[in-house]
Structures are given as structure tokens and as C-alpha cells.
């Protein structure tokens, strides 16, 4: 049983208008953290622990990242080795 429910998250492309309306606040924070220069994997791990209370390698973490990737909201950039928030 995960501590969060991804089913209410819309399956549409991300815009800033959508980002600002999303809940819980930890979701907004995660997507915001993927802006700017992007999020190095170790920072994502820290965020998962501190903000979502989940261990980076846990099934919960996998489910969360999968939910974001599947919507195209958070993508892994091979070139910069960072997670980046993706719009459109």
C-alpha cells in the first residue's frame, strides 16, 4: 500500500498552469525541483526520503517515478545525467 495515490493525477501533458494546481504539495515540489538545471539522482533520492518518506529503491519510489515518467512529466536526461521536468 503506497502512501500516495497517483490515480487522480491527470493524464495530460504538463503545463505550468497544471503544475501549480497539482496536489499534494510534495508533487509540486518534485516537479519544481526538476526545473532550472534539473535534478541530479542523489537530490531526487533525498527528496523522496524527506518529502515523500519513501526509500529511493522501494516499490513506492518506483511507482511514483513511473507515474511521472508515464505522463511525460519527469524525464531522465542521459546527456546531463539529471531528471528534468518536461512540458508539452
Amino acid at each position, binding site marked *: 500500500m503506497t502512501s500516495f495515490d497517483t490515480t487522480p493525477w491527470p493524464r495530460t501533458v504538463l*503545463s*505550468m*498552469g497544471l503544475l501549480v494546481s497539482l496536489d499534494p504539495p510534495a508533487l*509540486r515540489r518534485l516537479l519544481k525541483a526538476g526545473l532550472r538545471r534539473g535534478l541530479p539522482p542523489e537530490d531526487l533520492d533525498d527528496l523522496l526520503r524527506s518529502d515523500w518518506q519513501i526509500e529511493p529503491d522501494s516499490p513506492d519510489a518506483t511507482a511514483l517515478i513511473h507515474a511521472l515518467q508515464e505522463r511525460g512529466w519527469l524525464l531522465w536526461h542521459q546527456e546531463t545525467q539529471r531528471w*528534468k521536468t*518536461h*512540458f508539452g
Partner: protein
Amino acid sequence: MTKILCVHSFRGGTGKSNLSANLATALAMTGRRVAVVDTDLASPGVHVLFQFTPGPDDATLNDHLQGSAPIEACCHEVTPDEVKRKGGHIFLLPASMDSDRIARLLREGYSVEALNDAIFEIAELKDLDAVIVDTHPGINEETLLTTAISDCLVMVMRPDSQDYLGTAVALEVAQRLEVPNARLVVNKLPRHFDAEQVRNRVQQSYGIPLGAVLPLSDELLDLASGGLALLEVGDHPWSKGVEALAQQLIDDIL
């Protein structure tokens, strides 16, 4: 690390572009490297303060966001001599003033992700201390993005009832985006207004630090955005107020 300062207001004509350009000047006068990005793509204007007119061969931000121009080609040094003498640099990323280009931008749009990447790319390429983002008024995709990525949001308002209400809305959004720092700037304070009263009202209304209260000024009206008040009328209370704000940002954010 480059700091992003987003100069925003809910309503138009509050003085964002004048503040952006003069704040950049004040920061560069301390020897810093600063860029001003005109994200007001629908009604650009901050280039005028630097007396920079993008020529037919000058690339603008539009050429990067909707084309293939590298961001470096869209970045123009506009450092005035007085600032050069202090060792500072000001770079401008202007938006296109070509009506066809503006129409195309509105028609086709662009991804704000490209704007995010452009800001951080130029920050690195030019080794910037600060990027000042001059915005379109109100809430739209660009202003939400630039608010979200800012290290400090500088909210500009006039002591006007519509501005009081609108500023509350913009700050509510900033709060949802958990902007780490914000400063309020009251601009165009009429001479007969009690500055202390305005100060108190603003601080009580919003609970964020007041960056400056700047007077409505005949000198600024005369200058008509044709130059930088900081260099043209440096002793004027408006210029002194902007300098003090710059120092506050240096102490607290930069």
C-alpha cells in the same frame, strides 16, 4: 551560482521594466555580471532603457525559442561606460519587436521549458551573478515558470486598490510554488501619500518583506524610459531607492 530575480506585477505599467533595467545597473555597478531577459514577448520594452534596438541581423529571444538561434547569439552586451568603469557587465536578451514575429509567437506558442533552459544556459555561458527577468504582467505560462525558477520574486505594485488585490493573487500563486524569497516594491507613490502608512498596509497585507517604496517622479516621466535613471538622475530618491534595494538583494540573496 547565478541567482534568478524575477520582476513581476499582476497589473501592467507598474514600472517592472524600469526597475529591471535599473536594478541590473545597480548590481553591475558593484562589478557584477548581470543579464536582463525580456520575457514580455507579447509587448517587449526593456531594451529601450538600454537604448538598444534589435537590428535585422540581431537575434532575439524569439529566434531561440521559436527557431534555431543559439542562445548566445541572442545575448547582447549593453553595458554603459559608467558601469564598464566599475568592472560590471550587463547583457540583454531582448524580445523581437517585429509584429510578424510577435504574431507568430502568439499563434504557434513555444514550450516554457525552452525558456527555462535558455536562462540557465546563458547564466553558465556568461558566468552570470544574476539574471533579472522582466515579465509580462499577470499570470500566464511564462510568469508561472519564471516565478517557479526564481531565487527571489520582486513584486511591483502601485498604491492602488486594483494593485493591492492583484498582488495578493500573484503572491498566492508564488506561495503555491514555494518561492524561496520575495520582496515587495511599491512604485509611483504620489508625493502627498504617507509612505509610512503605505509601508504598514503592505507589510500587514502580505507578510513579505518590503524591498522599496519608490516615489512617483517627474524625472522618470521626463526620462520616458529613454535611459537609466540610475545614471541620468543618480541622486533622485527613486534611484537611491533602487540602489538600496539592490544592496538588500546583494546582502540577502546574492
